[in-house]
């Protein structure tokens, strides 16, 4: 028994203490969080823009008012659809590699490029989640807002979006949890994120168990923290109705 404990201890020292290897994990975690955070913000921005275009096009389809605005909206809608098809139809690793090695081949700011790639990817999924949320709100809400004299955008802002946001919060949280874990492929683009850090330790110490399990536990802890805060937010939003 003591022998087993001693061997674990030795493994731990070898993998994390010797050569200050734990610092690799800390800086890797920093990179992962940075990529996730920037990608999340970018994803929300892209998602809201795409969802607004798509649902505005759908919701105003039969109000019979044509003109230049309608043509413009139609063009934007087509562009949005193409974007969604491409992003959702190809693997995120390929998107990352294309953006890193083809589009920004001359840049060396890997973290920012990865954040851009993951953000663009996440934006497509966020867009569809938000659009579903908007379309799920009873059309009477839009009519009530418009009948009071609010224009389309004001009705969206004060009446539709707040309700839609509450409905899609669980799906959005899911998307961001998936995003956090998806960033683990950033190593493909020579970025030292958390996963890559664990892998580097493994290749130096030739022991796989400790570093990989440590990495897994760190991801798990972050997801659990995220889940906890989303749960609290959800409860607070729900309370406002009872």
């Amino acid at each position, binding site marked *: 028994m003591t022998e087993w404990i001693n061997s674990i201890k030795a493994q731990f020292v070898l993998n994390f203490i010797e050569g200050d290897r734990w610092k690799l994990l800390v800086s890797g975690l920093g990179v992962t969080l940075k990529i996730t955070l920037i990608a999340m913000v970018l994803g929300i921005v892209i998602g809201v823009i795409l969802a607004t275009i798509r649902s505005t096009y759908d919701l105003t389809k039969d*109000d*019979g*008012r044509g*003109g230049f605005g309608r043509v413009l909206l139609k063009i934007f809608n087509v562009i949005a659809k193409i974007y969604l098809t491409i992003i959702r139809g190809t693997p995120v690793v390929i998107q990352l590699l294309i953006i890193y090695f083809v589009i920004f081949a001359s840049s060396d700011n890997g973290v920012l490029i990865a954040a851009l790639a993951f953000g663009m990817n996440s934006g497509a999924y966020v867009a569809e989640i938000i659009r579903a949320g908007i379309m799920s709100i*009873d059309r*009477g*809400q839009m*009519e*009530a807002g*418009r*009948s*009071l*004299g*609010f*224009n389309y955008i*004001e009705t969206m802002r*004060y*009446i539709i979006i*707040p*309700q839609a946001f*509450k409905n899609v919060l669980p799906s959005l949280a899911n998307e961001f949890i998936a995003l956090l874990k998806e960033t683990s492929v950033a190593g493909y683009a020579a970025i030292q994120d958390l996963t890559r850090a664990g892998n580097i330790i493994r290749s130096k110490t030739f022991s796989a168990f400790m570093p990989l399990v440590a990495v897994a536990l760190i991801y798990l802890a972050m997801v659990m923290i995220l889940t906890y805060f989303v749960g609290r937010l959800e409860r607070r939003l729900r309370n*406002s*109705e*009872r």
Partner: protein
Amino acid sequence: MSDNDVLIKVRNLEKKFNGVTALKSVNADIKKGEVVVMIGPSGSGKSTFLRCMNLLEIPTSGTITFNGVDITDKNVDINVHRQKMGMVFQHFNLFPHMTILKNMTLAPMKLQKKSEEEANAEAMKLLERVGLADRAQAYPSQLSGGQKQRIAIVRALCMKPDVMLFDEPTSALDPEMVGEVLEVMKELAEENMTMVVVTHEMGFAREVGDKVLFLEDGIIMEQGTPDEIFNHPKTERLQNFLAKVL
């Protein structure tokens, strides 16, 4: 009838949904202070007609003149005119994520730039009138159907509209709650509010209406005072309809 007395003038109004005609060359004048009640079988186009008046449905052709402005003109900012046309829906359409008070003050504060105190004070006054002042901080899900509809009415009144449009306001209510909503509407009529009401409540039409329109198949088949419509119906269609509902 002088032209300035007419608040809403409808001329040759036509509405088609994907080629199906819902309204055929409808003409009507709604005078200031008048209560116009629209009756007719379901699918007759009365709700469509009402919803055309504030352009929730865009007419296929024809004109609607409100306060002297042709609101079907594409260059007219309809949002400005809708502020002066209150609307009450069959399914209330209160905003579930806001308190009753917030439901009522949102539009006055954002659109008429009223201060929160002013908007709150006006809303509370209206709430007292319909006996719901104690529910100001409640959420719509905590109210009964009758209460919700009374709130929907005062929410529209907060904008101080020139006309109130009612789209079957009691059709989604339990029978015992119909009375309280009709009572509020009656009081409104007594205060000389201009009202257009689509309803199946024949008692209300007879008692409160100044003019009754009978619609069928997208046309106004017959119109007149409640006495003319209910006691001396001319067309066979109206006679049949009344026989069924009375």
